[in-house]
Every structure is written in C-alpha cells, then in structure tokens.
C-alpha cells in the first residue's frame, strides 16, 4: 500500500488542528474560576473541543488512505507546534528536558508503528 501525498496532507493538517485545539483548551482552562459563568460563557473551551473533534476526522480520513507507519511520525508536527504555541501564547519555558522527553516519545511512537507492520 502506498501513501499518497493527500493522505500525508490530511494527517499533517489534522495534527496541526489538534495542537491549536489544545492551545484553545489551555486558554479556556486558565479562564475558569469558581463561578459557573466562567464555564458557561467559555467559548475558548468550546472551540478547543470542536477543533479536537475535527482533527480526529482528518486523522481518520488520512489513515484510511495510507500506511500507518508512514503517517504516524507526522503526528510529531502536532507535538512541535504545541511546544511553539506554549512558548508564544503562554510564555512557558521550553527546556532541554522537555525536548528530550518529546524526542523520546516520538521515537517510541515510530518504533511501535514499525513493530505493528
């Protein structure tokens, strides 16, 4: 089974959407207080959940069209984007420990998928 560029584009777009969704969830979570209106009027949480759902649709569409072992490493785009959003929007520190942890996780994902071929 070959993996066409369209399948790669779908998965890449899906992971990008997922990372943006996670950033919205974080922004919405920070805005939460003990008052119920902070949840009821929290459009950021809603956008976050919605983007997560949409990203899974793109993901499934992409995976149905290509090889999982080629497509799964592309999830890494999502992780790297999330690190970027964390730094840009939430001013989190991207330490070498974090980069090492993410690197190991990505290597693990690739190995797992090579193993399931």
């Amino acid at each position, binding site marked *: 089974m070959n993996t066409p560029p369209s399948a790669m584009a779908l998965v890449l777009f899906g992971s990008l959407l997922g990372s943006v969704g996670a950033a919205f969830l974080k922004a919405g979570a920070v805005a939460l207080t003990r008052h119920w209106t902070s949840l009821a009027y929290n459009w950021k949480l809603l956008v976050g959940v919605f983007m997560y759902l949409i990203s899974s649709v793109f993901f499934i569409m992409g995976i149905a069209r290509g090889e999982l072992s080629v497509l799964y490493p592309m999830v890494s785009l999502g992780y790297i984007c999330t690190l970027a959003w964390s730094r840009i929007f939430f001013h989190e520190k991207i330490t070498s420990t974090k980069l090492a942890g993410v690197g190991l996780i990505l290597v693990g994902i690739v190995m797992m998928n090579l*193993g*399931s071929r």
Partner: protein
Amino acid sequence: MTSVTTLTPPPAAEIDLAKRKRHSLIIVLCCTVIGAAAQVLLKFGAGHLSHPSLWQAAIGILTNPYLFLGYACYGIFAALLVIALRHGELSLLYPVIALNYAWVSILSVVIFHEHMNPLKIAGVSVIIIGVAVLGRGGSK
C-alpha cells in the same frame, strides 16, 4: 553565603505552584488510562457494527453500551485534561498524553490477544521513558 541562600526555604507561593504542577501531571496520567479505556471500549463496540452508515453509528453511540461508555470516557478525559491545564504547562502535559498509545498496545495484548513483538515492546518502553523524563523535568 551560598550555603545560606540554599538553606532558605522557597516562598510558600512557589511550593504551592510546584504542588499544583505535580497534581496536574497526576491528573493527566489518569487521563491517559481513561483515554486508553475509551479506545478499547470503542473497539469492543465497533465490532458489533459492520460498515455502519453515519446514522447507524450515531444511533449505536446511544444504544450500544460499549460505544456509549467509550464516548463517556472521552468526555471524562476532556474534562480532566481541562482541569489539569488550569495550573499545568501545556508544553509538558500535551506530550504526556502519548502514554495513551502505550496503554492501548498493552491492553490490546491482554484483552484482544494481539501479537506483541520486540520492536513494539521497545517502542512502548521508550514512550514510558520519555514521559518519565518529562515528569522529572516538570516537577523541578
């Protein structure tokens, strides 16, 4: 002088922040277990539907207990993730969710008797080590 500064306890606010960060990490670890349970339940439930239409799938979510529980688990997963993100760092917690893959592949062997080869075992181990590295770095 340096010994004096290291002996000075950190301010209470800082201890509180570190505690909250650790709690966030523990919540997300629970999240990954619930997320894995959701995937296994969905796999169980999806086995009952063969090539469903969008409509049949939608009805299945409401009538099939496995699918219903699976999606309920996803709901709990999302709620817990938001609670964790209130005080936790996104750059730390988001990659930890990858632990999901590890639990699912272990559960697949236990429940569905799927084949596990050395490369898969190594992959799962490397993911767990990566999460451990993040956990250590994050609590500092």
